[in-house]
């Protein structure tokens, strides 16, 4: 085969034209086969260089090299344009309304009492307390006797306490989580720093503010030199974490068999004083019944209703919502992700 300059230049022109006029990537693919591929005129011209005289080989080699580069550059440029056009077309064609309601499976959620309990536990874990739990059906001795509530105590009547049959077994549904405190004091040496959340039972009819089954959280600290100032500081901290930095608290003298001195703790929230719970210095009789020397150790305890805390903090008007298990109520609080 002989090479001629004009033929090469014609082939280049044809190739450039074909590249220029290729409408899409599919057409461009054919252009590559026809004008760049092994069987194209330019490729074949290149292949025939070897048969030429050295002088001609150099001349034509240079020419073909230059022209082929021109073609491949043009090809690459055209390919970029067509790819961009294709992408643009796909993006246009595949446009959807992204505001359509999203595809989803069932929504779940944690009960706000669970979320609140977790939050309180974390708060006290941070203060170096352990979380202590115990049985909901409890011995009368642990629920009452050990807490300085002897057999004749008024709280031990059937109006207040659920008794379990047979009565001789002396089992009650715990009326507070205090038996967990008792169990801890009986089993552990001080120092004791515990927070006791849990379900408790009292024979109250369900209404907007009462439920026979309710959540309570109690705290207990037994250590050397524990004072009522420590109790106050702990409650202040707890109240701020629950209700915000600006919340005010107050202690009012009160009476509980298991604490002495005793107090009610109130907090001032959204313009009014709200009764939060009971507290006090652990009664020495309780320490003695649990085998702790009151001359060596002192302690404080406090307890509040979880529902009440939840209702005030979140503006829940009716206890029924908390106990009925309506999914709308629970799902409002999500899974506690923040």
């Amino acid at each position, binding site marked *: 085969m002989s090479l001629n300059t004009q033929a090469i230049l014609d082939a280049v022109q044809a190739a450039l034209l074909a590249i220029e006029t290729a409408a899409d990537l599919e057409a461009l693919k054919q252009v590559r086969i026809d004008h760049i591929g092994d069987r194209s005129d330019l490729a074949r011209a290149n292949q025939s260089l070897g048969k030429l005289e050295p002088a001609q080989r150099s001349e034509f080699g240079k020419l073909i090299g230059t022209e082929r580069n021109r073609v491949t550059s043009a090809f690459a440029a055209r390919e970029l344009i067509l790819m961009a056009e294709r992408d643009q077309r796909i993006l246009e064609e595949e446009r959807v309304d992204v505001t359509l309601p999203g595809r989803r499976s069932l929504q779940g959620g944690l009960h706000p009492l669970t979320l609140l309990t*977790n939050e309180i536990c974390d708060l006290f874990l941070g203060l170096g307390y352990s979380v202590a739990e115990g049985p909901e*059906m409890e011995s009368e001795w642990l629920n009452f006797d050990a807490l300085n509530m002897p057999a004749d105590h008024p709280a031990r009547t059937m109006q207040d306490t659920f008794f379990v049959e047979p009565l*001789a077994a002396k089992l009650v549904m715990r009326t507070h989580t205090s038996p967990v405190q008792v169990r801890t004091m009986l089993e552990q040496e001080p120092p004791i720093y515990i927070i006791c959340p849990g379900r408790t039972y009292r024979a109250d009819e369900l209404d907007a503010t009462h439920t026979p089954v309710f959540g309570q959280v109690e705290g207990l600290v037994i250590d050397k030199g524990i004072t009522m100032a420590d109790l106050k500081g702990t409650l202040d901290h707890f109240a701020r974490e629950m209700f915000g930095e600006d919340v005010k608290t107050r202690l009012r003298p009160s009476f509980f068999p298991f604490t002495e001195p005793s107090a009610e703790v109130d907090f001032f929230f959204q313009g009014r004083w709200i009764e939060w719970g009971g507290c006090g210095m652990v009664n020495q009789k309780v320490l003695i019944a649990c085998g702790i020397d009151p001359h060596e150790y002192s302690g404080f305890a406090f307890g509040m209703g979880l529902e009440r805390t939840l209702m005030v903090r979140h503006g829940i008007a009716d206890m029924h919502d908390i106990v009925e298990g309506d999914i709308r109520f629970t799902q409002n609080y999500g899974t506690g992700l923040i």
Partner: protein
Amino acid sequence: MKIPLSWIREFTPVPADIDLLSLEAAFVNVGFEVETIDVMGSDVQGPLVVGRVLSVEEIKDHKKPIRYVGLDCGEGHTRFVICGASNFKVADLVVVALPGAVLPGDFAISARETYGKLSDGMICSAKELRISEDHSGIIVLPAESAEPGANATQLLEIHDVVIDLAILADRGYALSIRGIARELAASLNLSYQDPVHLIDSKKFDINTRGVQVEISDSTCASVIYLRTLEEFNSSATSPIWMIRRIEKCGMRAISLAVDVTNYVMLELGQPLHAFDRDSIVGTVKIRRAGTDSSITTLDGQERKLHPDDVLVVDDKTALALAGTMGGENSEVRESTVSLAIEAARFDPISIAKNSRRHKLSSEASRRFERSVDPSLAEFASARAADLLIQFGGARHVGSAISGEPRYAPIVEMDPNFVSELLGTVVGLELVEEKLLIIGCDIEKVSPTVWKIDPPSWRSDLSGPPDFVEEVARLIGYQAIPSHLPTGKSGATLSLKQARKRALAIMMANSGYTEVLSSPFVSQEMLDILGLETDRARSFRLANPMSESFPLLRSDLLPGLLTTLSRNIARGFKDLALFEIGSVFRAIEAPVVADEISTSTKPTPAQLAKIYSGVPSQPVHLAALMVGNTELSGWWGSGRKCDWSDAVSMAVRIIEETGNQVQVVSQTTMPWHSGRSAAILINGTPVAYAGELHPGVLAKLNLPERACGLVVDLNLIPHHEVTKAKPVWTMPVARQDISFIVDARISAQEVEAALRSGAGDLLESISLFDRYDQMADGQVSLAYTMTFRAPDRTLTSEEVSEFRTQAGAQVVERFGATIRG
């Protein structure tokens, strides 16, 4: 307790200009919750005078009796008014609102024409003046109690402040004007006159001329006084001020003898009882009922007696249920001219039991239960005798006494303990001052040893912390500083607690909504669910809220099913609920509990028995689902939940805890026996899951195909540290295998066979196709197995051999036919 401020002022000079907020704060600061403060008479204005009835003209021909009454109101002429009441007669003293007066309810009085007459004012009832609820007729004042024209507003002490206080259980002494006045004086730093110091009891001789008394059982009472009075004028009436004070305290005036006992009780806190002396035979005694069978109390009720009931008796019969209510037989009557006034210090617990056993809570029992000052019997009975002599013309015959007051023991304490326990320095002078204010006597043995004798009315002050509280409340709890202590570093949740929390979050993120359902269950529900064995062994409450729900849940499903129904009733179709909570199963035989003292720590043996008497209460996780688990929408239809969602969720829960499970079919209720599984760890069932029994769903009116799961979290072992699995990075090789096998062979068995044949380099296995519409009870299964070696690329010959070996196992074990 309701307390008129005017009465308190008799014993402490409360400033006339004290505002209500300061008054409330004064009580709250020392530990008395204020229920209400009623400014009485603020709604009564204008002329209110005493009138004497001069004439009564009955106006007939009306539906109700109407009187046209002529009155002397001290004006020098007769004033005529119309009156609809008829409980008065000529010469009676009545209360007249003159024109210009305004009565409660913005009721302006004016002269007006009515029933054809001019009515120039109004004769008032107690209710119209809002001084009591009595509207049975108009007020008729005791004869000679006032002159016509006298200011009735003053006479009736209409203007007053009545404070209603909640009295704590340990402050019995505060159920009296004496106690409250002392507290208010202490709170406001005012002087205080103890009313007891105004009483001369010695002038009443102790002798044998009156009725004699004897405490036969010293566990019932420590001391009793009985004062006998004769020549009592049974028609004498109580003075107006006494009636008004009794009314302001929320009680009713009845008769002079009864009013005096109530008045003294309100003033001093000592309940008294007046007997008709002539009904008493022989000696009055205090003892337990024993074999006595019944007593008729003065409310007319015959009450069956308990052997431990404390009674006041004479030689013949029971006179009173002690400290609770008098007997009908010895009641003071209109004809009574001789009285025996009883004042006793009964045992608080015994009276509490009297009251509880007979469901009789009286003003007396409330005070006795909370402990009455033992020194009061002497003085209160003397005070009552004084009043009966003064207003009833009675004569003291003689007084009798049995027993003697028992006082709380002297307490020795280091006064510095106050500062130590409160966490702030309280000067010893201040400690002393406050203890003296509440009535203690102090003997300072040394700077660190004080012997403190609590006052007779404070039997609750028995140890050093009690005195700390007294000082603290009088200096104010606000004086205590705030200090935040911290506990032990390194506090964490226990494994059990951490698991419970993580599980709840996992359930919620898997689409389940947490509920906390009622633990009270009906027998009917257990029957419907068909629970058997341990799952049906529920505890029964002795006093359930509702007789329909007397059982404690032995399983979470009953409560969860009820909650599911409630949500369905509220219009929800696609639901997934879960609950984590304790269940109660009466599996162990009940242990009869011992009496165990609290004066020392129980012995290890006693403790062991206490603990073992409390049944174990495992924590379960249960879930229910109904309807779609993947929701339908604009994208197309959803996917209904089925047994396999339930089983796989239960398996996932357990596997996430690092335990290996085995799934087997099971047949217990309330599950669909063909579509439910028991999930085992090491052969022990720890969970049940699948579809609920169609019959159960029908009975509960729940949608078909509802599914659920129950996991006993206590049976799942904890694995604290998860062991690493090697992550091999050489290329993966896949092999598919399909075969036909008897449909009764479980998927779990098939997979186990494949695994055993495929060898150690098998990385995972998954069933990607299952066809069960074949003849002869056969099923076609297709699995993908992936293989990987730690150190090289597997050759196709190698993996082909693994596949062959795996297939050989299903052929050998189950007679499967390999299809490809």
